[in-house]
């Protein structure tokens, strides 16, 4: 059976976008951010509680879903050919590593094949256990411009519980941060991102403090919404409510843009947001702008807009959007307003005399 570097797995969305597989997207979403995953017969050596590729999740590795859907396998050269053929509508190519001894050499091999045929930017979503300063530098020298680190948890407590000793996962919080620090040094400001998954056990306060901390270091935080993979150790865990998810999206967006500070947010004893003091105009601008509620991901060139939009990645097409893979429409923004329930937790800090339009006026039923 072939393995990387000769073959790669692609997300279902990438396979559709590259015209490798029949099918379509709801709402005619266009996807230019192509995610591929290194593929080995014995799979990933880690054992994260929420991950579809976890070592101890039942089933053959090739049949395992990942982030809700199948990841079909294709010859690497075929994927590269399709990337080159559709270059005009492609925005980014992201190679996801798995914890495996061949990961580094195979990543370089795939990058070289890719670079020989196309100029679309490349990210590596790295596997810190197999990385070092030298290896990260090799990626940069080979043409990678962004590094992602799937930290997933924002505290050592949750990391250990979901990825470390508690699940016999073998991953180390300290090593992940070592790679984040090295990547920041090598790749520069706003070129390193940390993936964090809302719903693994960290509190609202911890997420927002994390966002504030990494933003100060010019590192990007990419939010993901937990979706329980069947048969994984967290198969029975609940997803964050839409109310919680939207609130974190909004506050993260405002923190990143320095429109608010951590002092503007109040929490209960369990670390959940209970109140925030936000200027009315700032909230309105964020909702109407819509970016706060779109997918976090690496940008394309030259527009700088998010390319890795992962349509229907953490929610079914029949469910409300968690993160929008396109700018939310007026109707979408009405849904967002209802899901945010602003009046329940936001204390307006509006200029004196400013009147707020009612929800009904904005979103007639």
């Amino acid at each position: 059976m072939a393995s990387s570097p000769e073959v790669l797995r692609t997300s279902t969305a990438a396979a559709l976008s590259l015209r490798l597989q029949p099918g379509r997207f709801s709402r005619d979403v266009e996807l230019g951010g192509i995610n591929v995953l290194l593929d080995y017969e014995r799979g990933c050596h880690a054992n994260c509680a929420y991950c579809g590729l976890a070592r101890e999740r039942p089933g053959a590795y090739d049949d395992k879903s990942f982030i809700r859907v199948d990841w079909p396998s294709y010859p690497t050269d075929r994927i590269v050919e399709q990337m080159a053929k559709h270059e005009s509508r492609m925005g980014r190519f992201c190679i996801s590593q798995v914890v495996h001894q061949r990961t580094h050499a195979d990543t370089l091999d795939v990058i070289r094949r890719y670079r020989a045929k196309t100029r679309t930017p490349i990210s590596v979503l790295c596997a810190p256990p197999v990385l070092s300063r030298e290896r990260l530098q090799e990626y940069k020298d080979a043409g990678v411009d962004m590094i992602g680190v799937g930290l997933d948890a924002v505290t050592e407590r949750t990391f250990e519980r979901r990825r470390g000793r508690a699940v016999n996962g073998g991953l180390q919080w300290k090593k992940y941060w070592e790679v984040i620090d090295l990547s920041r040094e090598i790749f520069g400001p706003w070129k390193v991102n940390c993936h964090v998954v809302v719903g693994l056990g960290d509190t609202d306060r911890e997420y927002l403090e994390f966002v504030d901390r990494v933003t100060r270091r010019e590192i990007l935080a990419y939010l993901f919404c937990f979706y329980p993979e069947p048969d994984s150790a967290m198969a029975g865990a609940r997803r964050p409510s839409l109310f919680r998810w939207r609130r974190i999206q909004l506050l993260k967006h405002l923190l990143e843009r320095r429109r608010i500070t951590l002092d503007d947010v109040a929490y209960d004893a369990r670390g959940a947001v209970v109140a925030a003091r936000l200027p009315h105009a700032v909230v309105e601008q964020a909702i109407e702008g819509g970016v706060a509620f779109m997918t976090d991901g690496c940008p394309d060139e030259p527009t700088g807009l998010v390319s890795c939009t992962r349509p229907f990645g953490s929610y079914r097409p029949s469910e409300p959007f968690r993160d929008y893979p396109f700018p939310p429409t007026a109707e979408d923004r009405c849904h967002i307003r209802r899901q945010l329930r602003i009046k329940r937790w936001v204390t307006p800090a509006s200029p004196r005399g400013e009147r707020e339009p009612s929800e009904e006026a904005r979103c007639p039923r």
Partner: protein
Amino acid sequence: MPKVDRLHLPDDRYYDPQEHLWVKIEDGIARVGLDQLGSRAAGTISHVDLHRAGKRIARIGAAFGTLEANKFVGALRAPIRGAIVEVNPRVLDDPRLVHQDPYGEGWLVRIAPSSLDEDLARLVHGAAAIVRYVTEKIAEYKSRGILPEDAGPTEVVVLH
């Protein structure tokens, strides 16, 4: 040499070219299902939801359920008017049947028609018309990226 892809369509039924639904008349009752091109164009079907037996369908195009694939959800729109007399419980439990056996075990609903002759007249029927419908749709779907553009020629096989 590119692999020839085969699409099968039995000629003992009527087809709605917009919705990719087939209608087969059995003892005055219309059995309805998704044709093979429709199941491919949707992607990997993960959930099927159908209205209950007894539901009246007053107009052509009224929704009688939804079909959800990994990255797509869409309404199932009735090709004929009448009342649903039976839904296929097996396809609700195992939506993969729609792909695996689209003209057999993967059927969706049975409808007692109210204006059968009039409704059938607007559907595609007969080998030549079926081939024309599918060929045109394949070309459209390849140009829209719904079917792989370089998957090789598709042979439309009309089953007699």
